[in-house]
């Protein structure tokens, strides 16, 4: 097992730790095999399995960066402040993360407020002379204003290149202010996939916020690594006499600190939770649930049983599982009847997509294709029980057209033309508008918890029944509004043609 290194201030990127790729095309079974995770006994980080070939072509559309994931996690911690050490352009997305913070707070019945972030606002002179003095003054300003319990400092492409020694300033102010001032190294160019930003935030929290050697343990507390989703885990855990500790978004600094006192850690998505869960286990002895993700009936069963094992609540869990099976069965049957014949397509983050496809298939919906934004050949635990793609393929069958593409609408266009699904499930922006132009409605899963657990089946079924009706809007739109792609591209059948034959772009050029 590779040790999580909490000595270094910067987290190792996903591609370094897990062999992450962001472009790949084939079928899911093939990807499972090539990943060599739970298969072929190669399941080691940095091992043979981590050498997936990446299908990157010369044409790419805009993506998302690690710093944004730092904003959406560290920037959404209550009683803390995130400083973006950057020119103002990195700061502009505060408006976006403020919106989801406000919506999230409201959905959890917490007081709605603006998030607390500041951008050091570096300008031309700072690129020459360095921005550390501005960083110092900004730390003093935000401390004066908010008296936060922790200050996160997110770096940027600009500060990474000019080489600002952020670590020395954070050390200086941790000492001076008596609160954790935490460097989060998240330069956008440093990693090809934005989820390194999750890891950067979680690394900083593990290093400087989580209580070391806690004097007490809370045997009924479970860390739930999530985003802004509604309180789905709380009511579920009540049946097991467990309490939730939601992290990282909207948690207070104290709630982050008490993670080491918890009995176990779970997550709604291995992509998000991999690093923090493993870090808590390795460095603080808090075990993580090692089971399939809690999607669909069998996944949820296994997940609950492992949680029960870790928290010694097997009896309660079996009772809950049995009663839930009985409760949802008639409704799920009814939904299956209504959803029969539908074809869906899933385009979300990686492990989340694996979970959603199981939910769709349990509802009897056909899923022949998926576009995920990246692929981690292995997760930090290296435990085969967390190989979510293998779990999907082995228990629910292959996904014939499984494309890894870092949110590339032009490739998505080709995939949709090929599959013509009745609806798509999405989370990140940029793809649903393409589908709409082709007459295909999308369900945006802003509340990431909607598909979780037993109730998730019912929730998703009902969401899909509503969404497919919106086909009317999309079909009407498709008659009047086109896409910005050339005829040459729209004639292509293979979304990865440019990766396979990059010189094709120069054809006809003298």
């Amino acid at each position: 097992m590779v040790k999580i290194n909490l000595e270094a201030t910067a987290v190792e990127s996903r591609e370094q730790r897990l062999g992450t790729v962001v472009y790949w095309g084939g079928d899911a079974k093939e990807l499972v095999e090539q990943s060599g995770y739970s298969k072929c006994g190669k399941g080691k980080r940095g091992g043979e399995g981590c050498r997936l070939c990446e299908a990157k072509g010369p044409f790419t559309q805009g993506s998302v960066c690690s710093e944004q994931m730092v904003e959406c996690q560290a920037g959404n911690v209550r009683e803390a402040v995130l400083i973006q050490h950057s020119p103002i352009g990195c700061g502009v997305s505060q408006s976006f993360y403020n919106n989801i913070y406000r919506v999230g707070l409201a959905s959890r019945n917490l007081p709605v407020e603006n998030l607390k972030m500041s951008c050091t606002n570096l300008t031309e002179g700072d690129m020459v002379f360095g921005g550390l003095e501005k960083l110092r003054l900004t730390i003093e300003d935000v401390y004066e204003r908010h008296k936060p319990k922790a200050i996160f400092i997110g770096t940027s492409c600009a500060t990474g290149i000019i080489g600002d020694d952020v670590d020395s300033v954070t050390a200086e102010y941790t000492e001076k202010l008596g609160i954790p001032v935490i460097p989060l190294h998240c330069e956008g160019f440093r990693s090809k996939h934005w989820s390194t930003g999750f890891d950067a935030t979680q690394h900083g929290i593990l290093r400087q916020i989580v209580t070391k050697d806690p004097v007490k343990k809370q045997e009924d507390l479970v860390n739930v690594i999530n985003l802004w989703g509604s309180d789905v885990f709380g009511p579920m855990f009540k049946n097991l006499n467990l309490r939730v500790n939601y992290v990282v978004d909207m948690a207070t600094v104290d709630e982050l600190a008490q993670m080491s006192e918890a009995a176990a850690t779970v997550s709604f998505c291995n992509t998000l939770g991999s690093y923090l869960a493993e870090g808590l286990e390795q460095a603080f002895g808090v075990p993580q649930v090692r089971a399939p993700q809690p999607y669909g009936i069998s996944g949820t069963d296994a997940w609950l049983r492992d949680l029960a094992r870790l928290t010694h609540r097997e009896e309660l869990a079996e009772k809950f599982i049995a009663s839930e099976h009985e409760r949802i069965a008639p409704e799920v049957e009814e939904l299956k009847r209504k959803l029969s014949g539908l074809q869906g397509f899933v385009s979300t983050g990686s492990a989340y997509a694996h979970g959603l496809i199981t939910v769709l298939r349990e509802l009897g919906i056909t899923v022949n294709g998926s576009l995920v934004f990246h692929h981690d050949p292995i997760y930090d635990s290296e435990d085969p029980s967390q190989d979510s793609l293998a779990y999907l393929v082995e228990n629910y069958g292959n996904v014939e057209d499984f494309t890894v593409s870092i949110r590339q609408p032009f490739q998505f266009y080709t995939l949709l033309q090929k599959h013509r699904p009745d609806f798509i499930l999405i989370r990140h922006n940029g793809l649903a508008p393409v589908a709409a132009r082709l007459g295909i409605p999308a369900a945006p899963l802003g509340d990431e918890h909607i598909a979780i657990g037993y109730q998730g089946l019912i929730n998703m079924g009902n969401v899909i029944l509503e969404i497919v009706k919106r086909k009317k809007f999309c079909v009407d739109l498709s008659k009047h509004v086109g896409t910005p792609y050339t005829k040459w591209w729209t004639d292509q059948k293979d979304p990865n043609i440019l990766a396979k034959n990059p010189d094709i772009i120069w054809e006809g050029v003298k």
Partner: protein
Amino acid sequence: MTKQPSMKSESISRPRYGCAIGALHSAVAIPKVVPILDCGPGCGDKQFVSLAFYNGYQGGGYGGGATPPSINTTEKEVVFGGNDRLRELIQGSLKVIEADLFVVTTGCVSDIVGDDVQSVVGEFQRRNDPVVYAETGGFRGNNFIGHELIVRSIVDQFLGDYDGEKEKGLVNVWTELPFHNTFWRGDLGEIKRILEGIGLKVNILFGHGSAGISEWRTIPKAQFNIVLHTWLGIRTAEHLQKKYGQPFIHVPVIPIGPIQTERFLTEVGEFAGLDKSKVRSFIDKENEAYYKYMEDFTDFFSEYWWGIPSRFAIVTDSAYALAITKYLVNQFGLIPVTAIATENPPDEYCERIREEFRSVDCDVSVDVQFIEDGHVVDQTIRSAPQPPAIIFGTTWDRDVAKDLGAGIVEVSFPASYEVVLSRSYVGYRGALSLLEKIFTVTISKSA
């Protein structure tokens, strides 16, 4: 950046603008023009989700949103330079994306490591491919600055020189910053309508009323330029004056309502040498329509039992702040208690802007403050001697509005609680929409 007395740093919380590369939206705003982003993986997304999504949910349209080609800089380009990657991306874009013009906008990485973007783009320009570039690294300034850099790059690299005839009555209009101003689409439509109403042929240049590149190609032929903004566009107009010998007229007040719109149209009409009676007859017709609605509105405004609030604070860019303040003060007698301009205008324009606010009306003078940091904005609104009953601002100002019991009218980026399609707040028709919005908000507070 004007440092505020209550803070040590020049930091900005709750930003009310993007960086220079945010002006990629100025390219998107021209029909069938697509930006190519020579920047990090998140730069385009950050600007899009902020300026074009959580700001009235304006959407990416044809070539915006997640569509723009982007090199998504990795360590490789940082260490070895990004020229090769940019070259293949431009060529790939020509192959995959249907556009009349591509505008390469650079980000911090490219500008710091010193990529030779000019020479890469030059290769395509020599092949007559429609590609221009602008250096818009975020540290160079905000999206207002970036806007003029992009406009200039299109003028200099794509339109080029022109010494032909001028077309009398053809005007280029440089006004609100597309996308940043939440209502720009509707506003530009109304500005075009009223200028056409007095007999001009209008190059509105951005938005659904623009013909796109074919319209841009006629920029050099225009009789003159209109800068309808407190300052944005002056540099462009000065450049066009030098380049094409075009005069320009600068009108700092974007007109809202009949009094200001009449002033604007009369002034422009005189500058253009239009037939006065034709201008007059359009104004009369518009006035008549407007005041019919005012007759209806009078019942509400004069005898709504529970009172109509008077005191307002306004916090937005200087042009919209001035425009709305003028209308509400001059035509309704509302009382401005705080006015804050948030877009960091270049120093040389600040005194002129202050003067415009000082002379809002013969009996009303406003001391406008230039503030960019959200925390200081908040403190400033709270410290007004009399609290405002209405705040014209952004989503950021909802918390202070709630605390003060004021109504919030989101008129500026970020307006995350507004869905805006064609709504306009300017001219004759926009004024009516603005009134509807303001008073719907204020009376909704009662229940």
